């Protein structure tokens, strides 16, 4: 469903709260020399053979710019993706490359001023969407290395204020946007009272553990309600655990590895303690790769449970004939947004399409779709950085241009921060296309 009146009000409140995040930040004081030294050490400890091969292979062709929504939207060459690796390249060339004795002669050392300038390049103007990696004729995985640059800036005390507030909050409290267990309990009772939806809590012996996120608890409760309604309808054994439910990982988004570790281990420990077979991540893009791909690396061995995003899980149920949906009376044309972290970084493409087909909707693909999908413009935490608002609006317009070209009457999305970015982008650009949660659509159309 699109946003109803109570959700619109919640959206306004939530947007206001997000706008004020910056005011809560305390500055990180660090002498310039220390920043540079910590950044260099971080670069050197993270550079591995894959990255070395990639950095050695670059021919400076600049084609990656033509894949990047921030460059396409602004035509400002400073946002060229490979340029975002310039500091990393220089540290590699001077200190690690097999030809360092030569490169040192003409490669400048990095400076504290450059590290500060790089904040805008690796946070504000990069959603780590990975489209540039697929463009590169040399096969350089640019986006993966931009993510490493975020970790380096985090080491140098240069996480943007908004993301730092979120990261510090999650490290301290284990939750985001103050969506602690009390607020979760409130939302669960609210959904029970208003919609009659039961959410099993801490149920021993469950097969499935469902995660949610502060964004869904505060704002997009239709996604949480929809998940519960469909799982109850399917009759599977599932629960939400109050001591490990937050799927978002602001350690990953900010580049702070300690927080990433703590937040990921909280989920893993809870899942192991409860003995579940599957952990389902909510409509929160980055939470999927954060657990599905990076979880095992943090845990130190393969995870003893499967990880699926809710769109993947429900899509599989539809594809296996276990979940029947009511087909729309009239063929409505919709467009689908593949969230980068669930699609390009996650490998989930056919499942949401199977759901749309089962709903009897007519999918008009955007010109760039599946692995080539454009990001919404606000991923990887960019939707929270105040000063990035004009930039992400440009990126939003690139995306929305392709959506409008499909002639769709509505847009289907399975990521809360994408929804948030679409909703704010729509207001600023006077767009009116309704944006629907995939899981909420499924929940509204369950066939008995």
């Amino acid at each position, binding site marked *: 469903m699109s946003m109803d009146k109570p959700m619109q009000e919640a959206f306004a409140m939530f947007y206001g709260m997000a706008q004020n995040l910056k005011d809560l930040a305390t500055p990180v004081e660090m002498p310039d020399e220390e920043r540079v030294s910590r950044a260099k050490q971080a670069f050197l400890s993270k550079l591995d053979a894959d990255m070395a091969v990639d950095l050695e292979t670059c021919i400076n062709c600049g084609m990656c710019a033509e894949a990047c929504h921030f460059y396409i939207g602004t035509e400002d060459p*400073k946002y060229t993706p490979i340029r975002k690796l310039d500091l990393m390249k220089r540290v590699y060339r001077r200190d690690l490359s*097999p*030809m360092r004795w030569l490169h040192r002669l003409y490669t400048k050392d990095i400076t504290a001023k450059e590290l500060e300038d790089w904040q805008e390049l690796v946070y504000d103007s990069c959603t780590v969407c990975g489209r540039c990696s697929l463009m590169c004729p040399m096969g350089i995985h640019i986006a993966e290395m931009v993510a490493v640059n975020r970790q380096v800036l985090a080491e140098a005390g240069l996480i943007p204020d908004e993301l730092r507030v979120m990261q510090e909050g999650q490290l301290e409290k284990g939750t985001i946007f103050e969506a602690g267990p009390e607020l979760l309990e409130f939302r669960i009772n609210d959904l029970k009272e208003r919609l009659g939806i039961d959410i099993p809590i801490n149920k021993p012996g469950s097969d499935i553990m469902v995660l949610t996120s502060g964004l869904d608890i505060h704002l997009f409760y239709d996604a949480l309600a929809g998940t519960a309604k469909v799982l109850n309808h399917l009759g599977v054994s599932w629960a939400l655990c109050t001591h490990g439910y937050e799927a978002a990982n602001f350690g990953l988004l900010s580049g702070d590895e300690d927080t990433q570790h703590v937040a990921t281990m909280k989920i893993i420990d809870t899942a192991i303690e409860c003995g579940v077979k599957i952990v389902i991540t909510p409509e929160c893009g980055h939470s999927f790769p954060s657990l599905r791909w990076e979880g095992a690396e943090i845990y130190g061995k393969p995870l003893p449970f499967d990880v699926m995003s809710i769109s993947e899980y429900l899509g599989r149920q539809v594809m296996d004939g276990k979940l029947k949906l009511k087909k729309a009376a009239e063929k409505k044309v919709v467009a689908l947004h593949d969230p980068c972290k669930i699609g390009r970084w996650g*490998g989930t493409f056919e499942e949401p399409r199977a759901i749309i087909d089962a709903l009897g909707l007519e999918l008009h693909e955007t010109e760039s779709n599946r692995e080539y999908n454009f990001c919404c413009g606000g991923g990887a935490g960019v939707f929270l950085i105040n000063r990035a608002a004009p930039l992400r609006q440009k990126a939003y317009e690139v995306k929305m241009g392709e959506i409008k070209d499909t002639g769709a009457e509505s847009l289907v999305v399975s990521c809360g921060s994408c929804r948030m970015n679409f909703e704010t982008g729509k207001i600023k650009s006077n767009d009116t296309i309704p944006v629907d949660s995939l899981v909420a659509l499924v929940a509204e159309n369950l066939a008995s």
Partner: protein
Amino acid sequence: MTLLDFARGPALQWSIIIFAVGTLIRLFGAAFMLRNKVLSKPRKSDWVRGGFRTILTRTLPAPVFEKRIRFQHYAGYIWHIGFFITLLFFQLHILFFKGLFGISWPGLPNDVIMVTGAITAAVLVALLVRRMTNPVLRIISTIDDYISWLVTLAPIITGMMAYAHMGFRYETMLAIHLLSVAVLLVWIPFGKLIHIFLVFPSRYQQGAKFERRGVRA
């Protein structure tokens, strides 16, 4: 020792040694650094195939990308193909390779080679102008890009001049041509021309990583 003797002899020999040793150091120095064992369960287990597939498929851009990089992409192909046609199918080059390796193959008419060489040089000049004027290329270009451009173009120009008896007398032009080849060989391990070898492992890595996640890169 004449200039030609020097070019044919020690210059070429040493350039080949520097090229071979330098390239090995650069390739193995990078590829044999540490890498972590991946622990997450793959979505698709045949990632080796995915890696090799990307080596092939990245030869052409995806249709949705192609329209935005058309000029650069095709211009790149034209000069690469032109360069290898002149290198491998010019009859005097074939004679030279026969002397070195003892094998030969049919060549192309000299006029065809000259036209190919001229087109290759013209495209390289056009790409240099683009590099110096396009805002994206200007901001990311380094001295390596200009050196690599120069050492790639020089053998084409000097070779065509020697064949056409332009500039100095033939023996001198031939010596200059051979020296330009020596410079090209020497530069390969130090600059971005190393991509002629690294493009394959780099594409492979990305293809394999995405394949593990169930994504065709």
